[in-house]
Every structure is written in structure tokens, then in C-alpha cells.
């Protein structure tokens, strides 16, 4: 259950930060609805943000491993 709680907290944090970054990147002056270009930008931004998250996670993990081996 601790596991589930952490997974949920982690997903919420990711969603919140992603929404913030992608809103700022994709919405210039907010109009009366999300137009096509904005919707595409949001989907793409979201995919790249998750790619970035995974890349960062791997890089951090391998650095931690390297530091552990050094000690």
C-alpha cells in the first residue's frame, strides 16, 4: 500500500509539472478554445516531457551506481 501511495504521488507530481511546462510552452495568448495547433503541441510536449523524465531517471540512476562503485 505504501507502494501504491508513492506511485500515485509520483504520477500526480509528474502530471502537475508537465501541465505547467506544456501550458507555458504551447499556449501563447489563451483563446476561446484549444485550437488544433495547441492540441498537437500539448500532445507532443507531453510525450517529450515523459521521454525527458525517463532519460533523466536513467542518467541519475547510472550516476548513482558510478558513485557507489567509487566508494
Amino acid at each position, binding site marked *: 500500500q505504501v507502494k501504491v501511495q508513492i506511485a500515485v504521488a509520483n504520477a500526480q507530481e509528474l*502530471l502537475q509539472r508537465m*501541465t*505547467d511546462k*506544456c*501550458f507555458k510552452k504551447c*499556449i501563447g495568448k*489563451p483563446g476561446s*478554445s484549444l485550437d488544433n495547433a495547441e492540441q498537437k503541441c500539448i500532445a507532443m510536449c*507531453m510525450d517529450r516531457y515523459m521521454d525527458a523524465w*525517463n532519460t533523466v531517471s536513467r542518467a541519475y540512476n547510472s550516476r548513482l551506481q558510478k558513485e557507489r562503485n567509487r566508494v
Partner: protein
Amino acid sequence: AEAAELQRMVAVEQQKAQFHAQVHTFTDVCWDKCIDKPSSKLDSRAETCLVNCVERFIDTTLTITNRFTTLVQKGGMH
């Protein structure tokens, strides 16, 4: 009965607190998007921009949350 009443009141207040927390976040983001220089009154253009900003921010949140849920169910996340 009194305990239930108290519990209900606390729940209402918690909801209000959550609502206000959201309003603070939205105001922060939308202020930067819509207000360049503060003028002597909030003109209608700034007001429309603020309303649209809140609506589009919520749209963005819903779009991202729904898409994320679909991806997770398909097993696209590690």
C-alpha cells in the same frame, strides 16, 4: 448527530481551501500571461484573457490527464 455535522463542516472547509489553492495557482500563471503593465482598471481585454486562461489551463490539465491514463493502461510507461 453532532459529530456527523462537525465532520460535514470540516469537509466543506477543506473543499473551500482546495478551491482557494487552485485559484492562487491559476491567478499566478494567468497574471503572467495576461497582465503586462497594471493599469488604472482591469480592461475587458485583460478580463477575457484571464477567463480564457483559466478555461484553457483546465482543458490542458484534462487533456494531459486523460492521455496519460490511456498511456498507462496501454502499458506505455515504464
